[in-house]
């Protein structure tokens, strides 16, 4: 009580100095509130944005590993690289099931593709070379490029990422399509292919492999590919015109016992955290995955939409650190001056028997009282200003980001990559919607952080008074005064 009473008397007595300290702390508090509010809101936005995506892992080639020791100028080098590529141990459905049995994996799905020729139908001719169907960016596509059609088998509805993303939409479908789609020889075909071959729902379609084995399928749905995902193609048909969709079991049946018909599996694993990807990769290697494969995540894509917010968040952090350093130094200096001015008072108080500890606590209490008042005011002002400041910062970020995108597009000859961002990936990611405003909120978390930062700053800057009080000899001070 004595400490607080004396601290309060001193604050009232040294109004000028305490107002100065208060203003400095107010400015620091204001800056901290704004930056903390922006930072926390940005982090929340990033988290919620990322959580809107499944954390996906796919298997891709480890190109770096494969290119080790490769010398393209030497015929031998090319030959050995080709040999290396051919010898990469592929993975099968049972391997995928084995990989999926992991603590890091929540669920999985896959597409299973095989190349077949038309028997009762004709391939829709495509003029450009850019005709590789989506969904086969990974794995080994042995015989698909030379065949008429790509038969893609999905393990579940979850795996049909093109439909989830809106890249494909079903235009016609039988009533019981989804009841039978994953169990039997049923297919969905592109509406252009249907029109090219005059096909309709419930028609039978015959396809054959290179050995002449014929397989019959029934059409239960007709889909179309969205124009947005078709912009890159120079063909009159969409990319997926010769893609026939079925279930993975149908593909498995086709390939069973037919060594010449090699299928390509493309699994997608939903993991619980991106932090575990390395551990998961090691686990896959232990379970027999060839080391020329590597795990790839969709983290980068998930983050691309929040790059502007991330920039602001990191700018906020830097600004916060600089503010705290400068504020800390200023407060420390003011405290030093304060102590020098109050040396006589310290001497008298020590002489009448006030302990060093009590005196130190009194000086710290003075600073804490002023700080708490200034921090409260600063938090209030910061709360009001944070939204405006954050949105104006973001506006600049977005405009500079757009300029960069346009520049990249020009480098690629003016083709608009941005519009096809979701579809280009081809694995069902929704087209990335970037944020264009932040509602920075000063919540209890920000206030607690502000209070912790403020009080830490006060304590650090009080070191001057603490050390001086320990060092001063009351008698020397009083003698100097006399």
């Amino acid at each position, binding site marked *: 009580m*004595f400490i607080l*009473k*004396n601290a309060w*008397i001193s604050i009232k*007595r040294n109004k000028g100095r305490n107002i100065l300290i208060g203003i400095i702390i107010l400015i620091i508090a204001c800056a901290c509130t704004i930056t903390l509010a922006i930072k926390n809101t940005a982090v929340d936005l990033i988290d919620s944005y990322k959580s809107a995506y499944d954390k996906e892992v796919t298997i891709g080639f480890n190109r770096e590993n494969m290119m080790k020791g490769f010398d393209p100028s030497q015929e031998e080098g090319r030959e050995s690289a080709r040999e290396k590529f051919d010898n990469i141990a592929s993975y099968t459905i049972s391997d995928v099931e084995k990989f999926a049995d992991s603590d890091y994996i929540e669920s999985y799905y896959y597409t299973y593709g095989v190349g077949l020729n038309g028997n009762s139908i004709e391939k829709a001719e495509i003029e450009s070379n850019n005709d590789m169907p989506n969904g086969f960016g990974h794995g080994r596509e042995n015989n698909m490029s030379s065949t008429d059609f790509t038969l893609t088998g999905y393990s579940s509805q979850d795996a049909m990422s093109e439909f989830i993303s809106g890249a494909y939409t079903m235009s016609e479908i039988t009533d019981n399509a989804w009841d039978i789609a994953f169990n039997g020889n049923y297919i969905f075909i592109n509406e252009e292919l249907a029109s090219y071959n005059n096909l309709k729902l419930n028609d039978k379609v015959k396809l054959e492999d290179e050995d002449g084995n014929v397989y019959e399928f029934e059409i239960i749905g007709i889909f179309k590919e969205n124009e947005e995902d078709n912009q890159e193609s120079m063909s009159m048909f969409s990319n997926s015109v010769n893609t026939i969709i079925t279930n993975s079991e149908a593909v498995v049946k086709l390939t069973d016992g037919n060594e010449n018909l090699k299928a390509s599996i493309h699994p997608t694993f939903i993991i619980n955290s991106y932090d575990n990807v390395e551990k998961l990769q090691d686990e896959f290697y232990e379970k027999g995955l060839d080391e020329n494969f590597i795990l790839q995540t969709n983290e980068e894509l998930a983050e691309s939409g929040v790059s502007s917010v991330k920039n602001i968040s990191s700018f906020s952090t830097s600004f916060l650190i600089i503010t705290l350093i400068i504020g800390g130094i200023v407060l420390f200096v003011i405290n030093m001056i304060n102590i020098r001015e109050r040396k006589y*008072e310290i*001497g*008298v*108080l020590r*002489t*009448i*028997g*006030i*302990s060093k500890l009590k005196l130190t606590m009194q000086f710290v209490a003075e600073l804490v009282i002023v700080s708490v008042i200034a921090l409260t005011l600063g938090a209030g002002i910061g709360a009001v200003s944070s939204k405006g400041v954050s949105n104006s910062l973001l506006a600049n970020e977005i405009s500079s980001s757009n300029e960069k995108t346009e520049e990249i597009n020009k480098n690629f000859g003016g083709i608009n990559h941005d519009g096809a961002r979701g579809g280009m990936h081809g694995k069902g990611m929704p087209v990335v919607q970037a944020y264009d405003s932040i509602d920075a909120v000063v919540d209890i978390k920000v206030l607690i952080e502000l209070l912790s930062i403020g009080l830490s700053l006060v304590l650090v800057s009080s070191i001057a008074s603490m050390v001086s009080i320990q060092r001063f*000899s*009351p*008698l020397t001070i*009083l003698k100097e*005064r*006399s």
Partner: protein
Amino acid sequence: MANKNNYVSKDKLGKNISKKEIKVKTKEDNELKEKKEIKEKNTSAKNVILSIKNASYRYSDAEEDDYALKNVSFDFECGKLYAIRGRSGTGKTTLLSLISGLEKCTEGEIIFAGKSLKDMNLDKYRNSDIGIVFQSYNLLPFMTASENIILSMDANGLKIKSKKEKAIELMEKVGLKASYANRKVLRLSGGEQQRVAIARSLSYNPKMIIADEPTGNLDKQTESEILEIFKKLAHEENKCVIIVTHSQNVCDTVDKIYDLKKVKDVN
């Protein structure tokens, strides 16, 4: 003849006293005298509140044999007014700082109420056992007279209902008007400030008052008045009052004077 030889003296009543009787009487007288001396000594020992035993002090940055104070031994009793006298450089202020616990003896020890200062909490000692009065008053200028006195009560942790009333009472005791209570100390004269300092030193009723040149800055008239206060505190309130001084007027007032000599003179 034998009877004649036996009676060699007469007592106060004219009665003859033999040699043997004289011997016994002398022994009894001696015993009584011894008892009286021991009793007096004990009474005096009981009254000793502060005892300085072979105290020496050397500044931390001084050479090994460069003492500011060497082998000082004094005893101070309750109810008496003392003066410690000495020329400049004899270590008067150093001795005061040792007594008040602001510095610690390099050698020897100081015993207060049977306890060595080395074993005591010196902050507590300063805010409850002794009161210190300085030549330059050492009041806090931004406070009023009563606030300075109350501050000292607070430092002591004194729990009374109205500290301000107590402060005014103390001010009146040292000859200050109650109306001065709310006056900033800088608006008081030197003598008045010194009275406030004395009132402050009395605020927690210490057993001993130590004053360093308390009248050094005051005129003769005020000096006498201040000395009168100290005298009353010693003789009427049974306090031990020690005044460090070189003023002859002060020395003429006190009960006992201790002289401090320069260390080199002592050597």
